[in-house]
């Protein structure tokens, strides 16, 4: 078995025993990337020399008998939405194609101080806006199980990197399902922690009140390992929560007997693919056999989740993305061309005798903003900026933004009530398996419906995990989702781990042969 086929926990054991060096592990991953990345386009940037240098440092530390971090020598892929000091951090956008932040995201800094080896940056939907990783300037990421299909998104690069065995661990971000949906479609395990569990400092914001960083890996055990490193309060993020970080791995083996699992009837209604429904039902049976008690719960406002999300997220995005205007950093339109264009327009207007229009022409500054933003952002990002700008405008604010906030509160109340009766809620991750590349690019609403089962967790600020529970006849992975009350990641990871002890879906790997 190749090193890249191992789970993070298995690889870590070999690194610790000295059987494998960090350099060996890094080389294996780098070679694998070289072999198959062009087929999946999961990773957008690798600096081979730097990776080997970082891995070498970990080996030296170990050789010198110095204490090493929890991830010592484990290769990790990071979504290209998290700042890495001195290295390009693009958000998959033309706007930031040449942007290198002078600082690490807190999550990245924690990875480094735990002696994790950052292997490269993962592809994503532009500014994390999308569910298919098709809108990146680096082109679409392909699903390792069927390269004609999407890997999901927006953390599609991270999910595909793990699924294709390019790296045992990846970091993704989840604003409306962006970790769980691609994890489900790629047959891996992905956790969206509670809002505030992991610092957002250095995570380039899409929708600040919804964004959350999380681990992606083959198994719940591997996610637990990475979450232990990433979680915790950060004085640089006012929304990060100051409460102790449990040793998530320690409670994984506690049996599930007596665990109460909630099932929401609405989640199995119209719109859910039959194969997906059947696989999730079988997963519920597995839980029954593990001693869990299954109960019906209701989330009556869940059906407004997508509509609510597509008001709040664009509102915040329109504000968060205002800073990209070509003045301070990032993409700026060609100034010479801009001035020539303005001059020509002025002359044309004056020649036509329209002095007033000539006077009202954009100033060079305003035209620079307009052109830089028009050229720097792709269509989905522009669509969301426009939606958000509209919804926050005078006269519409109460009807859209304020109303959405009220529904958001009701959605949270639904969860609070449900969690009075059950420990976790179980259900599908996505309505169907991975769709074809290009299938939904011209139908934004169909794409938004991908978030049906995942957005409510972000709106409520609770935690959720997705992991594989079956395969379609076409051989595509099917995922199941568990959701927990805030800060119950321990229970989520334990429930996922127990499932993985009883099944082998998480051990299956796609055959990515040339």
């Amino acid at each position, binding site marked *: 078995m190749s090193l890249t086929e191992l789970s993070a926990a298995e690889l870590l054991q070999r690194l610790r025993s000295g059987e494998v060096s960090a350099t060996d592990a890094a080389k294996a991953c780098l070679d694998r990337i070289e072999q198959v990345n062009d087929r999946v386009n999961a990773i957008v940037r690798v600096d081979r020399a730097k990776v080997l240098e970082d891995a070498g440092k970990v080996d030296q530390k170990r050789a010198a008998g110095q204490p090493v971090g929890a991830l010592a020598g484990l290769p990790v892929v990071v979504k290209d939405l998290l700042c890495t000091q001195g290295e390009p951090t693009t958000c998959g956008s033309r706007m930031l194609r040449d942007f290198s*932040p002078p600082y690490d995201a807190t999550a990245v800094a924690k990875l480094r101080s735990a002696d994790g080896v950052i292997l490269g940056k993962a592809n994503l939907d532009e500014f994390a806006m999308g569910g298919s990783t098709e809108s990146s300037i680096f082109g679409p990421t392909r699903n390792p199980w069927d390269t004609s299909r999407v890997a999901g998104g927006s953390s599609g690069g991270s999910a595909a990197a793990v699924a294709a065995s390019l790296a045992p661990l990846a970091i993704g971000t989840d604003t409306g399902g962006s970790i769980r949906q691609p994890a489900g479609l790629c047959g891996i395990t992905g956790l969206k922690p509670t809002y505030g569990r992991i610092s957002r400092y250095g995570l380039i*914001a899409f929708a*600040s009140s919804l964004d959350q960083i999380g681990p992606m890996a083959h198994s719940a055990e591997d996610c637990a390992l990475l979450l232990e490193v990433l979680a915790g309060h950060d004085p640089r993020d006012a929304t990060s929560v100051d409460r102790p970080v449990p040793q998530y791995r320690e409670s994984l083996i506690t049996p599930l007997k007596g665990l109460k699992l909630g099932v929401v009837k609405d989640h199995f209604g119209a719109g859910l693919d039959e194969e997906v429904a059947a696989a999730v039902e079988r997963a519920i049976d597995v839980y029954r056999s593990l001693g869990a008690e299954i109960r019906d719960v209701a989330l009556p406002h869940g059906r407004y989740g997508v509509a609510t999300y597509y008001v709040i997220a664009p509102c915040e995005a329109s504000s968060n993305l205002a800073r990209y205007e070509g003045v301070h950093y990032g993409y700026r339109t060609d100034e010479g061309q801009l001035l020539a264009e303005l001059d020509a327009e002025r002359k044309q207007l004056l020649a036509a005798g329209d002095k007033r229009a000539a006077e009202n022409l954009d100033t060079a500054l305003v035209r620079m903003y307009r052109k830089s933003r028009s050229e720097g952002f792709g269509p989905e990002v522009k669509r969301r900026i426009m939606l958000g700008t509209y919804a926050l*405008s005078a006269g519409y604010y109460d009807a859209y933004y304020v109303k959405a906030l009220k529904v958001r509160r009701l959605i949270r109340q639904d969860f609070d009530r449900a969690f009075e009766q059950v420990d976790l809620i179980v259900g599908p991750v996505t309505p169907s398996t991975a769709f074809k590349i290009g299938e939904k690019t011209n139908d934004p609403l169909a794409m938004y419906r991908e978030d049906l089962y995942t957005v409510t967790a972000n709106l409520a600020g609770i935690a959720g995990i997705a992991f594989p529970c079956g395969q379609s006849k076409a051989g595509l992975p099917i995922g199941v989702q568990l959701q927990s009350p805030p800060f119950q990641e321990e229970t989520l990871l334990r429930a996922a781990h127990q499932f993985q002890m009883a099944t082998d879906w998480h051990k299956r790997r796609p055959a990515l042969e040339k």
Partner: protein
Amino acid sequence: MSPYTVIIGLEVHVQLATESKLFCGCSTAFGAAPNTQICPVCLGMPGALPVMNRKAFELSLRTAAAINCQIARFTKWDRKQYYYPDLPKGYQISQYDLPFSHDGWLEISDPKGKFEPKRVGIIRAHLEEDAGKSMHDERAGLADSQIDLNRTGTPLLEIVSQPDMRSPAEAKAFLSELKLLLTYLGVSDCNMQEGSLRVDGNINLHIDTPGGKVATPIVEIKNMNSFRAVERALAYEAERLYEVWQETGQKLGDVPKQTRGWDDAANVTRGQRHKEESSDYRYFPDPDLVPVTVTDAVVEQVLASLGEMPVALRTRLETEFGLSAYDSDVLVNQGRALVDYFLHVATATGDGKLASNWLQQDVLRMLNERNWDIAAFPVTAPALAVLLKKVQAGELITSRAREVLQAMIDTGRSADEVMREKGIEQVDETELVALCQELVAANPKVAEDFKAGKMQAIGSLVGQAKKKNPNVNPGRVRELLIEALGKL
């Protein structure tokens, strides 16, 4: 009688004197080289997040409490969105519908009686971050704009008054009193040149017409860079508004609110370029920051820690030390340190009037001359008190005491040391009697003139006495001379 009433409201922006910025750890010191006090947070770089500076919030609470505002128990941060190159995030973090304080007042008065004492209402005070500075070089062919972001993120307190002021003088008094208060609180250095205090004014007129009162459109005036400029700009604008009304008859609501800039050199306000669309700032709560809750205990603590504010101090100087309203105003307006100096001297000598006179005529004159503040004044309050006690005891006449004070300032020595050096000592009474008798005997002509009723003849003898012994008290010499001459 003016045919109209001027209605003025002010909007004051005060930079708070914190070491670091409102949402990051960068220094707020003024005058550093451009773009040297910056970090990813105040530059609004991707992924950087703001964290509130507790100190700035505390200073704001103190200020709001001192202007008698209600302190909100729950307050939050909002984003005010607009594009400008010196606003790197594309929005300013401010407070919109739930400011941390509201509904207060500030008392103003004029010791010379230009207007009746009154309370000017405060609508709200809220905290926000400052923008950077744009510098435009508009010389022909050199069109060049540069941006300095050192100021970006400096805590700014915005105080909005009710339109309660009825003259430019009242507006100036409001600003002076506010500035004094802020200085007493130690929350701002209020330097208008450095931009740590900025003022915009809103003004219109209520005109008496045969058909009743008519309100003119409201004009906002910007770019007033000194208190004097505020007074002059408002006075100018009031007249201009009246002229415009006479010409056009425009009433409030007939035209949109206009913004005008004060041109200090030309002494006029000028209309500023009008934006076609009204600005929509699309305020919404900043999701990067958490709301702030303030407990009753914190409010009580803030109120208890305020100390004596200028209004209370003026009253105390008048009632406890018998000062006139004018004198207490002069002293209190000099700031707390000078008042403390006064309090020491007045208490030690038991004579507030005497202390006030010496402070105003001698100490303040010297401070102005040398451009010192009271902390730099070489004569401490106890040292001045020693000198004044000698005057009270008749050991020194005022003019000699002034001489002594000057020497104390120049040399830093005590009153006793200076007097010893200068050979100033009290002359024994018997010595003085002998001197007078001697002078009377030696000047028969003076005695003759005196007898003839020419009192001024004594003057020359007093002069001679001072020449023989500079330490003599001329008043006492005069008395003794009259006594001696009378005996002849």
